[in-house]
């Protein structure tokens, strides 16, 4: 299946990419992370599937937009 993977803020800089469109057999965001990056997955990293917060182990589906980002610091 194909998914869009997005990285924000410091993660974008560490990964070296903001967006990847990839073919993947990954069942969840955790597997997707390992496939898309060479980095360990910090437990503080937050995951969103289709622009809503999701668990890193929640299943992903074809066409999903999966985002990884550090703790938020707005306001």
């Amino acid at each position, binding site marked *: 299946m194909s998914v869009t993977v*997005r990285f*924000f*803020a*410091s993660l974008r800089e560490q990964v070296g990419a903001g967006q990847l469109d990839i073919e993947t057999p990954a069942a969840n965001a955790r597997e997707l992370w390992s496939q898309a990056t060479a980095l360990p997955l910090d437990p503080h990293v937050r995951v*969103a599937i289709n*622009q*809503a*917060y999701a668990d890193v182990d929640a299943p992903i589906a074809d066409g999903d937009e999966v*985002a990884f*980002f*550090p*703790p*938020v*610091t*707005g*306001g």
Partner: protein
Amino acid sequence: MIIELRETPYDPYAELGAFTRRRADLAGKAGANAVFVGTMRDFNEGDTVEGMFLEHYPGMTEKELERLCTECSEGAGVLELLVLHRVGHVEPGEHIVLVSVWSVHRAEAFRVCRDVMEELKHRAPFWKRENLGERQRWVEKNTPG
């Protein structure tokens, strides 16, 4: 409920004035208006900060703000709720966030304004990168509420 991201500086008090004139119908109904304005400081964690870049997640940021505002105001008798938030390059002294809540009595306005700010700080996808002059720094976490 009005939620807006702004790419340029805004005057929160002028915005509130304009909004209350547009919503003159609220005037005799809303006894209470609680407001929070967050402004960029020129110092943080002991360092002088020259500027900041406020990154966001276009699409999700707006949705998440809507979700949290809806949750915070549910059942609280909120008459109107306004949130403005800057994105992009921000200079010290410029305003980052405006939260304004109108209700009949003061308890609800105070509580919802405060709750929206706390939820926004914890959930809304924004990230601050500070310009310290000789280097850039991502803000790691927020100050406690």
